[in-house]
């Protein structure tokens, strides 16, 4: 036998990054299709419509900046201030509670089993429906609700407290309740990864508990805090149900305004508000990411 050629098979090449061929394209196409259909196109449409003319009853294609100009009216600006204020207060409270909980889970507990159990206690209740949880605040905070009735029967107050429900207080309370877990989990994740020998090194250098917290734990938890903050910010700013259910008719936020305008078929102005809100959130996220490197957490 002089023929030493091996039977021919398809040429095999090791996988190299960035190589575009039909198989690669097919593999990414489902994700591309979803992103295109449910993210790119809707957002593009919203941006487009935000420039359309609105005649009072109908909208027509065009290019006007009226709706963006209208955003600067005091009544509209007020909506944005409300929204950002609510988001800001929620963020601050959830950050403090979330950080404290994460710290407790990471550093105060010795047995991994205890950590898991406590973590589950803190997160599993939130697998229930968010709307139900929000609505459940009504019988708790209402004039004849749980809190008021208890306070009255304990003799601490004579009249029910009105600010508890249908107020900004109730909205922020509900947001904090819903979002603390969302803030805590990424912080816990990052904190848990802190090398314990760093804490020992800090103690070796003479750090007391607060100094360890300030100089080691806090800086090294920043990626988790950043991720949690991004979650909380976007969720609160985009939420409308809580404000509707617990805010009472007087509390105006951008999200409520958008839904009101949409139900009145005033789509161009609704879209303008949506774009503005999106822009604000993107700026906030950009600022966060500018100062904190989250890449190593991803």
């Amino acid at each position, binding site marked *: 036998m002089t023929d030493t050629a091996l039977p021919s098979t398809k040429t095999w090449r090791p996988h190299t990054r960035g190589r575009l061929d039909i198989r690669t394209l097919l593999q990414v196409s489902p994700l591309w299709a979803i992103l295109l259909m449910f993210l790119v196109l809707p957002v593009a449409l919203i941006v487009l419509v935000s420039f359309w003319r609105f005649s009072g009853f109908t909208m027509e294609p065009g290019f006007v900046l009226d709706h963006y100009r209208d955003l600067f009216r005091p009544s509209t600006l007020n909506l944005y201030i409300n929204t950002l204020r609510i988001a800001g207060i929620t963020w601050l409270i959830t950050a403090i509670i979330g950080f404290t909980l994460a710290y407790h889970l990471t550093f105060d507990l010795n047995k991994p089993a205890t950590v898991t159990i406590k973590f589950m206690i803190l997160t599993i209740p939130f697998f229930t429906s968010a709307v139900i949880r929000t609505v459940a605040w009504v019988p708790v905070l209402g004039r004849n609700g749980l809190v008021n009735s208890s306070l009255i029967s304990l003799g601490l107050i004579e009249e029910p407290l009105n600010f508890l429900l249908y107020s900004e207080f109730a909205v922020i309370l509900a947001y904090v309740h819903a979002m603390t877990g969302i803030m805590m989990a990424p912080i816990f994740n990052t904190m848990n990864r802190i*090398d314990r020998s*760093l804490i*020992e090194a*800090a103690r070796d*250098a*003479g750090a007391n508990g607060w*100094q360890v917290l300030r100089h080691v734990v806090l800086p090294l938890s920043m990626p988790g805090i950043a991720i949690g903050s991004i979650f909380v910010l976007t969720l609160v700013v985009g939420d409308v149900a809580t404000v509707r259910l617990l805010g009472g008719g007087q509390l105006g936020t951008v999200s409520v305004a958008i839904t009101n305008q949409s139900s009145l078929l005033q789509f161009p102005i609704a879209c303008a508000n949506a774009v503005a809100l999106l822009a604000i959130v993107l700026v906030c996220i950009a600022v966060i990411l500018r100062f904190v490197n989250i890449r190593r957490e991803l």
Partner: protein
Amino acid sequence: MSGGAVELINVTKYYDRTLAVDGVSLSVAAGEYCCLLGPSGCGKTSTLRMIAGHELADRGDIVVGGRRVNDLPPSERGTAMMFQSYALFPHLTVLDNVGFAPMLRGVPKVERIEESRRLLSLVGLGGWESRYPRQLSGGQAQRAALARALNARPQVLLLDEPLSALDPILRIQMRSELKRMQLELGLTFIHVTHSQEEALALSDRVVVMEDGHIRQTGTPLDVFERPATPFVADFIGGHAIFRGTTGQPGNTVLPSGEILHTQTKFGTGTPVALAVRCDAISFARRSADDNSITARVVTIEHLGALIRVTLKTMDGQDFSVVIPERAERGTRLTVSEIISLYWTVADTRIYAEKQAQPKAA
């Protein structure tokens, strides 16, 4: 800065039910380089951490520079620790890392920066102040960790396997740097390692530990020439260990039936271990009353200037012989060959098993 003496008096440590350190007593003189040497789990790291204050001793006294420090936090003991993983703060520059202890104390910034710069050039990292730990190589990270520990102005520097993470060439280089620095600064260094080569190279005093106990302390040469137990002889390296039973007075019988001459006061029938330095064994008989043993060659390792030959006796005991490469040329060994090896009777150390009582032959 000058070194302080360290004394451990009957120090004991339990982890839950496990006894990690069992009544350890040790004296380290001021300015001494002391290595704690032993296999994993022998308690050397626990002992070091108890001196540092990162572990609490369950019993016993720890004395640093004449003060009993059991109840003091790590930063008030006059000790500073260099961690195995260096534990440099990743979010701080090298300069801020080194200046960490003074920063906590409230030392003004200008003074802090100046002192940190001085220490960094002392350890050979001048110019690297604004780098971050992730930009440093292993050797550089170690120098930074050293500078940081020194900035705490300790009397005693505690090093937890500082060279383990380095590649072999760097390890030897950093080893002599550590020694040089210790001599220059005059501090007491206590250095934990599982490498006998490191311990022999660096220490003024070697402390060999096993199972939570100190088996022997002494100068490297002491421990190498006169190991106190078979374990020490084995661990310190460079010894062949043979086990057998004493027979007629002056004889030890190996399981293979071979008889070795040893001078001993042990009664007949005592199980014993014999230790001979690897470089004391040769392939040629030098005198009529040399001990001899028959063994099969297992491997021949060419280590450059030395050859290590590992062998197995007829009764299955493993040992090695080290000869200079130039000497080997005359013998031309082959694997699986059965040969005889010889050594002087006086080079045999004999130990009764289950007792740590050495008798020089």
